[in-house]
């Protein structure tokens, strides 16, 4: 496979994952604003921060108003991570790697792009927001479904999985990072109403509020939420889960190609570090420090993959 094609696949799925994650963030922010249980502006601000769009946003707006933030995150071309920008980039990458995709995957990407371009042509009204967010998530789900249902399990597939896993790990880590202070045990004792809303928002922004309940009793504690997001091997957006997928996909590649590269050593080391932790040791190390180190690790692995598999010349 061409190095460029591997890169195109990887980025195509990173961008698709990003669309979905952004839609979730907006959804969680919107909900908080509706329940009026907290200061909405600061909530929207942390949404923008989590989306990694602070500097671009601040260059354009002075205040964190729902309408501005929603517009900026969903459809502003000035925001390279807006849903519209990401859908466009995913589709451009898909065109570039068209020969590596099944017709089903390509058509899912292309049709979704046509639909969302239309939907996001003008500002989204508040009444339409839930439907629009639904459409964004459906787009992602359709492409992923086509991918799983029709693609060969070969190197092509491995690169798509690595893109998804890296983007998702990065996203969950940033959610935790922005809100880490609300998860510190020292900052509260169990159960103030405000804390509950905060934790619930975090869980909602990774669509995990219900799965969390199924796995835990009604006692939401910062440690249990953090444990779930970081270490739970069952939750498909936890850091542990994403890093396992990454290790697995890289392992398939190493076997397929018969060569272990630097990125393989890096992911093994990262997996070892994660395995050595319980939520208690994470808090001992310092949640913020832990998350920062995790994000750095993941980014370094991503860059090493690009180098090892010759995405660019």
């Amino acid at each position: 496979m061409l190095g460029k094609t591997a890169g195109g696949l990887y980025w195509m799925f990173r961008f698709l994952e990003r669309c979905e994650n952004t839609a979730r963030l907006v959804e969680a922010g919107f909900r908080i604003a509706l329940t009026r249980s907290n200061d909405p502006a600061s909530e929207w601000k942390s949404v923008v921060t989590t989306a990694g769009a602070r500097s671009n946003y601040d260059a354009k707006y002075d205040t964190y108003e729902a309408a501005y933030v929603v517009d900026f995150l969903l459809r502003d071309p000035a925001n390279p991570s807006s849903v519209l920008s990401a859908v466009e980039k995913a589709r451009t990458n898909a065109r570039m790697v068209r020969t590596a995709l099944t017709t089903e995957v390509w058509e899912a990407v292309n049709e979704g792009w046509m639909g969302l371009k239309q939907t996001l042509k003008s500002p989204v009204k508040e009444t339409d927001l839930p439907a629009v967010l639904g459409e964004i998530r459906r787009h992602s789900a359709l492409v992923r479904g086509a991918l799983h249902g029709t693609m060969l399990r070969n190197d092509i597939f491995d690169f798509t999985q690595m893109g998804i896993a890296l983007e998702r790990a990065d996203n969950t880590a940033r959610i935790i990072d922005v809100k880490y202070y609300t998860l510190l045990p020292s900052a509260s004792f169990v159960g103030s109403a405000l804390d509950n809303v905060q934790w619930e928002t975090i869980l909602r922004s990774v669509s995990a509020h219900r799965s969390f309940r199924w796995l835990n009793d009604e006692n939401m504690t910062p440690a249990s939420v953090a444990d779930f997001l970081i270490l739970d091997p069952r939750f498909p957006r936890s850091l542990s889960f994403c890093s396992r997928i990454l290790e697995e996909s890289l392992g398939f590649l190493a076997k397929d190609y018969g060569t272990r590269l630097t990125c393989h050593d890096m992911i093994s080391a990262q997996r070892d570090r994660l395995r050595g932790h319980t939520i208690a040791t994470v808090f001992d190390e310092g949640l913020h420090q832990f998350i920062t180190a995790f994000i750095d690790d993941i980014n370094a692995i991503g860059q090493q993959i690009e180098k090892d598999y010759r995405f660019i010349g």
Partner: protein
Amino acid sequence: MDLERRHFDEMLLGSDGVRAPYAEYQKWFANEDPTRLSKKSKEAEAFFRRTGITFNVYGQAEAQERLIPFDLIPRIIANREWTKLSKGIKQRVVAINAFLHDIYHRQEILRAGIVPTELISRNEAFLPQMIGLTPPGKVYTHIVGTDLVRTGEDDFYVLEDNARTPSGVSYMLENRETMLQMFPELFSQIKVQRVSDYPKNLRRSLAACAPQGCSGKPTVAILTPGIHNSAYFEHSFLADQMGVELVEGHDLMVVDGHIAMRTTRGYKNIDVLYRRVDDDYLDPLNFNPDSMLGVPGIMDVYRAGNITIANAPGTGIADDKAIYSYMPDIIEFYTGEKAILKNVETWRCSEPDSLAYVLEHLEELVVKEVHGSGAYGMLVGPAASKKELSSFAAKLRKNPGNYIAQPTLSLSTVPIFAKKGLAPRHVDLRPFALVSPEGIDIAPGGLTRVALKAGSLVVNSSQGGGTKDTWVLED
């Protein structure tokens, strides 16, 4: 309607009948509900969009990707007609390859005084870098798309020999797929020759042209300028259908005297490069130094005989519009036979007598730039305003050598499916020929382009033309 009657219609005869090749189709069509057909037509458009069968339009920031309109009435050619056409195309393709070899070697045809020397030596399409170089298998034009027009029952003319990088073959294939999906019953009733083998044949034909030193199965790749190129869909479509890599210049590098592509496992040699990049952009070291699209040093690898470039650089000299007028003589010179397919009468404006004639009859003629393509910079005399005519005359006087003129042909029409029923529109035809040492293979069919505006003679997709599925009947 009276105005249209002057033209030969390939389907409709007089008030009710149809020409023989359309007899079976007409039976089917007569029983079809126009509402159902309208619906099918819309479905086809949605299908093209969804599949991404689009072309890019230069210089339009918004809506960059456009559909080429597809018309659901097929263009039907009888087997007898096709046999003659394909014989004529083969003859031309043989002559073109012989001409190219001669022009870049002994230049017998110039010595014989059949083609004027200055037409070659002063021609930008002539590449001095190709002098003395023989491409693998002696094939220059691996893929040729001959543009044909028809004016009557037995009157086919060659309008252009596209010997550089003819495009449009993906539409030949996708149009047929679309028709098969929309009207499967038609194909069980009417025996239409298959075109779907084209990608397989293309790959085989290209592989057969691999350099001599290539051992084992040749690695074929397509070189595209990238996703912003107007024909990108076709490039990726063909790569996909052939099962070969689609590369860009920055994927390639000269490694140990070979052209190699950067893969996830290191560099891998390419033996045959089907390039969809123009000569000028192919090699910044040997041609345009600003090109980002090509591969630095590819010409040196080519000279060393380590890669096949399809089509060979410098083939443009054979489809140059000024050379075109000499084609009947060129064919006779190399094949010893009279040309089977007719040439359109052509005035070379570089010649003073011709220029005078052209200027005098501008309103009747079609004037083209010698090196132009895609109908850019073309004048259709009968359709031009007084102002357009006089400003074009000025251009002509200033640089006559840049133009040729031809009579405005009364192009045949084939009906399109319009809102008010069948409406005749002008068409042309581009069949595709594959050339290798194993022989010449012509896909039975081709790209039929159709002018969608009533009376218009310009069929180019860049100027709003559409396409039709082209059927060659089995008997």
